[in-house]
């Protein structure tokens, strides 16, 4: 058995850190307005990263982040709909309409959240396709590069992905085969990673390890 944490174990082991319960802010804490701007995705990325990095570690800010995120997240769903009601006297049908919008949004969000979080959980816990070549840490020249991996049962599609250190996707190519020649741009010079995602017949997805690919 692997000695590394799988996703479930990691979450469970980290959970005590999330239970710290101070509400006292320090001098480094962002203002509530800065926090709200970050939750809404406003401002430059570096500033959002700074604010959110702090907020996720600081118990007092983390609690505020959770509240601001929860009350503002459904806004996009609600804003796309209009309640068709005429007057204050008709709050009841209007409320019913609003409720339907909210419930529909809730159901949609719940489905989406279950799907996305499950993908991450499965990816962290289950073995995906075994990579073959290029070897982990191999250096290649830019241009067409051949990637090979072992087949898995019940797969309907593989997707080869090559991504840069900052997470930018350089290659994302679907295939039914277990080998693919993909163009690696000269701008990809440096240390990248490649992996293969396998979409299974039951709708789930498994991910291979990520191997280092150096581009010269």
């Amino acid at each position: 058995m692997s000695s590394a944490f799988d996703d479930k174990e990691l979450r469970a082991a980290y959970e005590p850190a999330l239970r710290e319960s101070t509400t006292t802010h320090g001098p480094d804490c962002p203002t509530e307005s800065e926090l709200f701007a970050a939750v809404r995705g406003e401002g430059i990325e570096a500033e959002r990263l700074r604010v959110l990095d702090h907020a996720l570690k600081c118990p007092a800010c983390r609690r505020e982040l959770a509240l601001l995120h929860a009350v503002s997240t459904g806004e996009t769903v609600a804003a796309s709909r209009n309640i068709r009601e005429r007057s204050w006297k008709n709050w009841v049908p209007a409320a019913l309409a609003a409720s339907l919008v909210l419930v529909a949004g809730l159901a949609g969000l719940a489905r989406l959240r279950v799907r996305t979080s499950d993908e991450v959980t499965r990816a962290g816990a289950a073995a995906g396709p075994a990579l073959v070549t290029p070897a982990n840490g191999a250096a290649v020249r830019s241009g067409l590069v051949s990637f090979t991996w072992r087949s898995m049962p019940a797969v309907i599609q593989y997707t080869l992905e090559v991504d840069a250190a900052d997470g930018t996707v350089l290659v994302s190519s679907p295939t039914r085969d277990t080998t693919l020649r993909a163009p690696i741009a000269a701008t990809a010079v440096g240390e990248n990673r490649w992996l293969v995602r396998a979409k299974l017949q039951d709708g789930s997805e498994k991910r291979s390890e990520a191997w280092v690919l150096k581009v010269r």
Partner: protein
Amino acid sequence: MTTTGSHLRLVRGDELPADQGQPYVRGMAGAGLDHVSSAIEGVIARFRTLVRSVGARRGLVEADLDEVLQDVRIRLWQAGEGGKTLEELGSSYLYHVATSAALDLLRRRRARRAADSEDIDERTELKTEKLSPHDAVEARELAAQIDAAIDTLSIDRRVAVRFHLAGYDREDISRMLGWTEARTRNLLYRGLDDLRRRLTDMGISPRRTG
């Protein structure tokens, strides 16, 4: 008198609530009050469900949400009594009011440097089994070691990992950081891989039984 919900009492213009300690809002007189109050409570109840579903597993404190909804309830009443129609308000008005109420709550708390400590039991879906004092100390130490390992990651991967471990999903991370879904996924995978490697290097492994 009309009772609505468990937190706020709506009363007609010429009445006082039976329990003077209960917060209340004076509303319109007549039969319309029942319809209005039940409609508002219906909207509030469903909004609460939605917000709780979003906040669950992300550290939302129930008491915070209740305090915000109390304010939202009052603002909805005031908007209605001010002659605003629902057509004018729109459903996004609810979110606008809620975020505004949440920000006001945080400002008030910070202004008075609230020292009220959070009741662990208030947190949604962050309950764990009871541990012995020794096991609890060990669990906290392990969490602190993981936290220290996370601190060594690059900031983009660190934020992605912290979001993930705090219960946020990739959609949340993408939206707040303005990243594409693919970039978010890559940074999260890389971050988690880096973290596992750091923990292995530190000699930290999961406690498994059986």
